[in-house]
């Protein structure tokens, strides 16, 4: 495991004041992957934006973990559809 790519969950929670249980719940619901070494949990630095985003949704809008999972799936689907729509629009422009 490349240490510089990961951050200790405990350290992350201390710095952000996000509760440790919130991050552990994200693991539990498979919303974020983690690495475990001895008894320490690590998260990938590239997942920080995603954790912060889910925390905002949870905190600002009171969305529970099932809801976060549903939103994650929907946003993924929306992104895919937007990409398809963009391609179709470009295809349509060929006939203008």
């Amino acid at each position: 495991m490349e240490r510089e790519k990961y951050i200790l969950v405990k350290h992350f929670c201390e710095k952000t004041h996000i509760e440790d249980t919130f991050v552990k719940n994200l693991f539990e619901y498979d919303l974020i992957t983690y690495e475990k070494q001895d008894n320490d949990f690590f998260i990938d630095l590239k997942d920080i934006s995603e954790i912060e985003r889910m925390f905002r949704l949870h905190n600002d809008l009171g969305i529970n973990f099932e809801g976060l999972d549903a939103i994650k799936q929907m946003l993924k689907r929306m992104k895919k559809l937007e990409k398809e729509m963009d391609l179709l629009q470009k295809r349509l422009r060929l006939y203008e």
Partner: protein
Amino acid sequence: MEFIDYYKVLELDKSATAADIKKAYRKLARKLHPDLNPNDKTAQQKFQQINEANEVLSDPEKRKKYDQYGKDWQHADAFEEAKRQQGAQGFGGQRTYTGSTQGFDESQFSDFFESMFGGGGFSRGGGRRQTAQFKGQDLNATLRLNLTDILKSQKQTITIGEKKIRLTIPAGVEDGQTIKIKGYGGEGMNGGPKGDLFITFEIFNNTRFKRLESDLYSTENISLYTALLGGEITIETLTGKVKLQVKPETQNDTKVKLKGKGFPKYKKEGQYGDLYITYKIDLPKNLSEKEKELFTELSKLR
């Protein structure tokens, strides 16, 4: 600076109760939250407005002040007096929405708000929101290029803020495509990593070709005689002139494919898409008597 009707922002009337305000705010926040509306600047602006409206209307003191002086906010004396009575800092405390997504700066409140309540923090009972930012803010930038600029990969230096960033723009990048440049965003909080820079390309098509990913499309006019009898034509491609054999009895709207004469494929060095040519037959105009005679003769042969 304009007066902002916070009741209107939350779609309420002045008689709204605290519960009505809470309900209206929550409903609109669910609808307009920036994390649920990625890349939607209008939603992000509206979210900012409802936050501001909620800050004022959900706080009894601020609401009272707003109701009392709101429309007459330009009467500075009255405000000054009000400020003096309440203490110079106005309302200290926690502010709302502290997270941020790409390009959304939640800390910017309207001039109207600033002039009325000062630039300090915000009071808020319950402390529902809290700072949770560790990674620096992601930044967005748009880079405008001509289609002919991206025929080859090129190195460019761009300036974002005061920072100069050298980047390689890969050939064949798409219009509207966004690339991420890691670590070139805002500084992290509490020792967190820097945010990222997202560059979106706006590609202006300065050619006569239409582009769909790496394929190019164009129409070529050919004469009636070339269409009927066949012949050689010369066409322009993005990389130079090409001679093309037109088959005899070519029909209008016939499409031919020129393999590998399209646009460079994104991040596939040396690979190109195809060029599709659609033939449009030019029918002769202003026929002479002799031509009319010959066409009549021809028509009798069919």
